[in-house]
């Protein structure tokens, strides 16, 4: 095994020679989301964040699927691939596995990642290729004009479900943790500072990082996350996870529950040492999973921040090590030797 790249998501990517600006990361294309869409805020946050990484712009690739969010790559002046519905993780996997010198990002939405592309999402997470997956969750289908999505709440009234949707939604964080993800986080479109702080950690993680971004669709599902934005309500429900810190918010605290999970209790009712201290590096994903369930029923309490950040060798690194090991052990392949291998005989 070569030197561990754990925690060094950018280690193999060439550094930019000069300082870069947000402007350099903007493409010349007119942005075509609906006015007021949460995607604008995410785009601006990403464009202003990229220069900070200090990597060569030409070694950055944004790959997307289909949906409103998947138009994202057109607006960044990097390499980009707007692919087909649900398949971005698969395409990005081939790219990242064969080109470890690239910073590869996947832009996807709740329908793209969790419905049509669910299989590719879970397999990229367990495989741990060096990808940063940004999952824009607006809990609705926007581009097809307002059908319910796999993260819509039960009973959602939409054009395709006039009497209410029947299926239980996915919790993307729980799903990712169940799929053996090494890095799982959640943030909010309107909180640029928090969003960028999460991206910073996601990029540093070498392997697949999943960042769920709550994103408002002001046309088909306006106000879906309003409770987390409204100053009247946000502090009472938003649980900001910070590594090494006790999990507390407003006048509440999180502690281990007798049922095996975690529970929210009035802070005044517990001793300080009973309060759960958040550990993103805990090898056991159970507590991270339990925290992801604090959101049951929906918006009772919503943790944001990093749920889990645990290093293990990335797939691309292991794959390239096998290629290198085969070459070291047996020497570089020779076509003549290959064809003449096995049982041969001469005629004439």
């Amino acid at each position, binding site marked *: 095994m070569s030197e561990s790249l754990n925690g060094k998501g950018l280690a193999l990517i060439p550094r930019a020679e000069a300082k870069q600006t947000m402007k350099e990361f903007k493409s010349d294309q007119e942005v075509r989301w609906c006015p007021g869409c949460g995607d604008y805020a995410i785009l601006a946050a990403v464009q202003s964040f990229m220069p900070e990484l200090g990597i060569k712009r030409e070694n950055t690739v944004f790959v997307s699927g289909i949906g409103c969010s998947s138009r994202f790559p*057109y607006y960044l002046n990097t390499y980009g691939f707007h692919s087909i519905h649900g398949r971005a993780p698969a395409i990005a996997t081939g790219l990242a596995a064969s080109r470890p010198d690239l910073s590869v990002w996947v832009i996807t939405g709740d329908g793209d990642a969790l419905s049509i592309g669910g299989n590719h999402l879970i397999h990229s997470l367990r495989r741990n290729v060096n990808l940063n997956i940004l999952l824009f969750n607006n809990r609705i289908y926007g581009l097809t004009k307002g059908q319910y999505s796999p993260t819509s709440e039960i009973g959602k009234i939409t054009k395709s479900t006039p009497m209410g949707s029947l299926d239980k939604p996915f919790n993307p964080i729980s799903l990712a943790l169940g799929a053996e993800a090494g890095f799982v986080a959640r943030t909010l479109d309107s909180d640029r500072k928090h969003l960028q702080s999460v991206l910073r950690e996601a990029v540093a993680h070498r392997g697949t990082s999943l960042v769920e971004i709550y994103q408002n669709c002001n046309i088909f599902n306006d106000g879906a996350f309003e409770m987390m934005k409204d100053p009247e309500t946000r502090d009472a429900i938003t649980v900001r996870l910070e590594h090494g810190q006790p999990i507390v918010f407003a006048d509440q605290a999180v502690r281990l529950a007798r049922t095996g999970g975690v529970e929210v209790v009035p802070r005044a009712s517990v001793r300080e040492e009973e309060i759960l201290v958040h550990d993103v590096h805990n090898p056991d994903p159970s507590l991270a999973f339990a925290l992801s369930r604090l959101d049951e029923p929906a918006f009772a309490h919503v943790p944001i921040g990093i749920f889990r950040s645990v290093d293990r060798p990335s797939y691309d690194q292991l794959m390239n090590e096998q290629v290198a090991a085969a070459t070291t052990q047996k020497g570089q392949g020779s*076509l003549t030797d290959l064809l003449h291998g096995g049982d041969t005989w001469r005629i004439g």
Partner: protein
Amino acid sequence: MTKQVQQLDRVIIRFAGDSGDGMQLTGDRFTAETAEFGNDLSTLPNFPAEIRAPAGTLPGVSSFQLHFADHDILTPGDAPNVLVAMNPAALKANLSDLPRGADIIANSDEFTKRNLAKVGYTESPLDDESLSEWRVHSVPLTSLTVKALEDFDISKKDAERAKNMFALGLLSWLYHRPVEATIRFIESKFAKKPDIAKSNVAAFNAGWNYGETTEAFSVSYEIKPAKLAPGIYRNISGNQALAYGLIAASVQAKLPLFLGSYPITPASDILHELSKHKRFGIRTFQAEDEIAGVGAALGASFGGALGVTTTSGPGVALKAETVGLAVTTELPLIVVDVQRAGPSTGMPTKTEQTDLLMALYGRNGESPIPVVAPATPSDCFAIAVEAARIALKYRTPVMLLSDGYLANGSEPWKLPEIDDLPDISVDFTTESNSDDGTFLPFKRDAETLARPWAVPGTPGLEHRIGGIEKADGTGNISYDPNNHDLMVRLRQAKIDGIDVPDLEVDDPSGSARVLVLGWGSTYGPIAAALRRVRKAGGQVAQAHLRHLNPFPKNIGEVLKSYDKVLLPEINLGQLALLLRAKFLVDIISYNRVRGLPFKAEELAGVIQDVIDSE
């Protein structure tokens, strides 16, 4: 005892047994011995999709047919001269293919009441008169093997399992095969189990000695080496040749090969083979599904690799949308379809040519792609290099249509000179291609209409591509009606303009009025049939298509210069449909869709009928 030696010019042997009896291995080894001896040969494995169907039943029968001769041959043969039947099911399943007078070597130990009942025999056919028209050699293969191995410290079960090596030894004696390589093979295959290795070698030798000493076999046979073109040869199956061709393409293109694949019969062996050759810089990715396999390959192509995906028909159906994305993003990609009997799951281990129309038209929108097909197992090597050449030069996905018969069949292959392989390397674009210094990802090469290939990591050429229609030149999203019409036509014109060698016609008489046209794996049976017809005085021409899209430029002319064109296909006339539509030629279609290759004798009859109807 001195035994008689008889000279033969060719023999067809079929090894048949339970799918757990090791018949494929036995056949493979006999083939290797035959190749080493210098006969020309052709093989046809035939096995059930089930790994171990219930023992002793008809669905569980697995067989391996080998045709070898002192002259060049074209097919694995229509009907066996010798059947090795390891149990009653193997006899019953294969007897109808066996011409009267053929030899049957039957493992009499397995003709028990129970095994006979499993396949509906009330009496043992070895004991009654039912096989009187064949020459039956009833040999207790199992008990002879167990007896030969009684001094070995192995279980009775392991001893019994070596009976296929006893049979191989007997057949090797019968046909004067060289044995050293087989002994070396057994020793290396069971290197970690020395007892098993020794006992298998002993069983093999016991089989040979049995042939030499028993009175059951009074004659052995000699088939002189064939006079083939001078060169170095090896025996190779279609799947192995295809894998080697892809490796050669990677070397000749100076690009790393990335294979994204999901296991599927009968294509999986290409994935297995390529996985062994990482020292060529090859990355093999076993994906979560067919779609991810092709997606990862396309992603790797975007990054500057030679992206390849390998599959069979059901997989091609799943990959269609991604192939369309490769069409519109104009990236190189090789899609290998080892065709099998369909529709749906069909008959996974049986061969067919039924994916041609899917390859050409099985996507949404106008999405033309080049299609190539190998003619023989060893041609899979050259066709893989050709597929890569087209994909890279024209920045397009290419469909390569092999099939189960080519994939698993084998033949001697005269190794190509490495220096004769084409240089298929391409240059990545590294500089702006416009006056104002911007990069135009869809500004085409005037001659090939290929777009520039600028890979991530190239400064100044950052650009975005995708599935949405692109403006000519800039590649920006465009919904302009005239631009779409232009782009549809440009993509078509690019494929239509691919340089394809002319169709060659073989007509020794020079005056044939009937042309037999074929594509893909029917080459061998058609050519063998033509030999028969010509030997009998028939005048007939042959042409075989390796490029199905675009067609060779002279094809229309060729078709129109014959009174009649006969086109045998293992489908219901897919190529015939295309040729009739494009060239208004009244093709005579001959179709059988039995999951098996054509027999030469059958085709010879069909060809003669067409000549006679002139």
